[in-house]
């Protein structure tokens, strides 16, 4: 099982020349890159590599998932909690195509991942051989880089490039396809980590004059507001961000993937922006005078209608990817570079401020949201259980130390809204792609990468059944993840939209569900179902106290809705509370 130690470039070994097979070279490259855990599923075209994994099993832990999609999400969970590159493997044909959803997810959420696929022998390429598929063609639009290897001698250099590309700059997924003959072929192996590629500039230089211009604008602002994203976490700039926020006294909100970079309880943390974000930061996006975006990409779920988004504000964009600047929102000052460097350069130029009156605006709107939404979510007086009170209970039992791995839908929004985060890299969820089925396998990877942390998967009854077979992986590896299914017998978010925008025509959103507790028990996982409020606290306590995997089903109110909400195409300032 993996651990959370980081391995610096200097510690990577340069392996000296020896004659070995291509497949052994793959394993030795992985070891040289500091990989300890890979997720995958064997099959014909990748059998030589699996044979080497067998020989190296004391050095490299292979986790057999129950579906290749599960392998990618597990690798993503591993990467998201550790900051290291996640690794997934599959055979050719259907094995490779099953990776695509996870790869697309990693691409849009900038997750460092290397996928290795077996391919039919090079003389069979293009012959419609058994389990042949053009995975390079298929994966091109959803990978940061991909490459097909047909000669063993290419393996060290290509894999070194793969890890370098996946991890550097704005991270992303890389797929390497290796023909079966290249896996068998012997060659003189030598491994050197990749340190640069001439056509690739991962991190643009931070321009001091841009930093100065940004500082001047921030210093002159009366109503500044920060929205930070995952760039802060990927760039490990949490401390720098905190210092900036505290010195300049700026109310700061986060995107879904930025969550946990600054503790939830921090007085300047004003909550989440976006479609189901908090009332105050959404509403006041359209009242601030300077909007400072840090490591975020103005996704449509964040901005609502662009034509009415922060039009009154000057916009400063701190961003590592030049293609994101002016992509959705026109910026007045763009500061390129990684967040850690840029924010460190910004800090000494900022004047200490407190902006008390401006803060009070946020507080006032928080009180409105509390009365209309939060109170009912967290302290319900009605009979049915709410998703919010389950989150509250998990916060209590984990003291905010847990990593929350959520799936996609209503429960995800509730988890992101109400989870109490104390530690960065703790909100692991499929943000950009919205991949149902993400959470269960991602939680496996997260727990393996951070065995000393509590990892709680929060999943809806719909998404759970998309990757439910990974319970088998949990049983086989004994990875002690905690699984909470918030069951409302509906595809809740779609049902909410049907209620609000399609006159309650519940087309194909009602689920007739199996006995989830029995299913978990079938995999020898401790399991419990909660249907009443008075059972909840003890059940969550028991789950968190357990040393092994635990499944908790909470039957919640069937037709609850998630608010606040910005309807599609509406302005952020038209955020609805009911």
């Amino acid at each position, binding site marked *: 099982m993996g651990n959370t130690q980081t391995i610096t470039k200097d510690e990577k070994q340069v392996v000296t020349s020896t004659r070995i097979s291509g497949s052994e070279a793959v394993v030795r490259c992985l070891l040289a890159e500091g990989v300890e855990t890979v997720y995958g599923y064997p099959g014909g075209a990748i059998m030589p590599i699996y044979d080497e994994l067998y020989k190296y099993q004391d050095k490299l832990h292979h986790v057999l998932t129950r579906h290749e999609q599960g392998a990618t999400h597990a690798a993503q969970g591993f990467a998201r909690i550790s900051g290291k590159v996640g690794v997934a493997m599959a055979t050719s044909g259907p094995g490779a195509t099953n990776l695509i959803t996870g790869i697309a997810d990693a691409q849009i959420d900038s997750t460092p991942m290397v996928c290795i696929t077996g391919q039919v022998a090079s003389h069979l390429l293009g012959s419609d051989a058994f389990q042949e598929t053009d995975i*390079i*063609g298929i994966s*091109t*639009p959803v990978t*940061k*880089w*991909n*490459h*097909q290897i047909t000669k063993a001698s290419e393996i060290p250099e290509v894999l070194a490039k793969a890890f370098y*590309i996946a991890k550097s700059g704005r991270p992303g997924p890389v797929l390497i396809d290796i023909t079966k003959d290249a896996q068998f072929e012997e060659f003189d192996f030598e491994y050197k980590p990749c340190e*640069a*590629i*001439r*056509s*690739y500039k991962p991190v643009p230089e931070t321009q001091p004059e841009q930093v100065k211009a940004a500082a001047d604008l921030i210093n002159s602002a009366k109503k500044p507001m920060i929205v930070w994203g995952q760039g802060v976490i990927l760039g490990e700039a949490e401390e720098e961000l905190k210092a900036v926020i505290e010195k300049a006294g700026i109310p700061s909100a986060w995107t879904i993937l930025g969550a946990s970079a600054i503790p939830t309880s921090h007085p300047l943390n004003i909550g989440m922006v976006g479609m189901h974000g908090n009332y105050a930061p959404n509403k006041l996006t359209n009242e601030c005078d300077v909007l400072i975006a840090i490591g975020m990409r103005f996704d449509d779920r964040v901005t609502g209608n662009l034509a009415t988004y922060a039009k009154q504000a000057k916009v400063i964009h701190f961003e590592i*990817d*030049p*293609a994101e*600047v*002016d*992509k959705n929102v026109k910026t007045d000052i763009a500061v390129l570079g990684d967040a850690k460097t840029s924010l460190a350069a910004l800090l000494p130029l900022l004047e200490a401020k407190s902006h008390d009156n401006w803060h009070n605006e946020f507080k006032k709107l928080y009180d409105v949201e509390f009365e209309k939404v939060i109170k009912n979510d967290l302290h319900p007086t009605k009979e049915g259980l709410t998703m919010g009170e389950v989150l509250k209970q998990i916060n209590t039992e984990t003291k905010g130390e847990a990593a929350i791995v959520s799936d996609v839908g209503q429960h995800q929004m509730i988890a992101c809204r109400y989870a109490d985060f104390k530690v960065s890299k703790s909100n692991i969820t499929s943000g950009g792609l919205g991949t149902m089925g993400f959470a269960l396998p991602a939680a496996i990877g997260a727990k393996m990468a951070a065995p000393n942390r509590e990892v709680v998967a929060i999943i809806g009854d719909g998404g759970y059944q998309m990757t439910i077979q990974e319970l088998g992986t949990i049983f086989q590896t004994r990875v002690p993840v905690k699984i909470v299914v918030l069951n409302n017998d509906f595809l809740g978010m779609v049902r909410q939209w049907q209620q609000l925008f399609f006159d309650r025509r519940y087309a194909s959103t009602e689920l007739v569900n199996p006995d989830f507790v029995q299913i978990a028990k079938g995999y020898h996982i401790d399991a419990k179902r909660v249907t009443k409020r008075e059972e909840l606290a003890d059940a969550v306590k028991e789950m968190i106290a357990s040393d092994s995997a635990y499944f908790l089903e909470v039957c919640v109110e069937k037709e609850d809705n998630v608010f606040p909400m910005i309807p599609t195409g509406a302005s952020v300032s038209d955020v609805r509370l009911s």
Partner: protein
Amino acid sequence: MSQENQIYTVSIYTENNIGLLNRISAIFQRRHINIESIVSSVSEIKGVSRWTIVVKVTEEQIKKIIGQIEKQVEVIKAFYHTDDETIHQESCLFKIKSDLLFDERQIQNIIKDSNANIVTVNKKFFVLEKSGRRQELDELHQKLKPFGIMQFVRSGRIAVTKDEMKISEMLLAFKN
């Protein structure tokens, strides 16, 4: 920034790797943009490929597309230019029955006036080559059409820019 569609010439310097065509064309395909023409060739720099792509989009679109192209790992640098900023040419070939060359005196005059070159002549057919601006090629095509053309083909645009594209310096910097 102009919101009207206009012709832009995109010049891309890249590594010469399998699959890059797919990666670049996917950037246009994903945005529902038709590629008017695409040419890949060697460049003035050893080991570096040069692509010339012609598209009809708004300036806002082309700026974003250049950003996405440059983001690709194997792309060294990408530029976009209006027609005024480049010297551009296309080339075309006509395959025509040889009889016409002798039977229709007019054809000989058309060839002479157009500065087209006869590439080959045999008993059955001759091949005419013409390079130039699209309009010149179209004019010649229109003039020859009435006589009957056995085959016609036109290349994509190739273009050099009037101003320097600072690419060699970048590669030099990498070596140092």
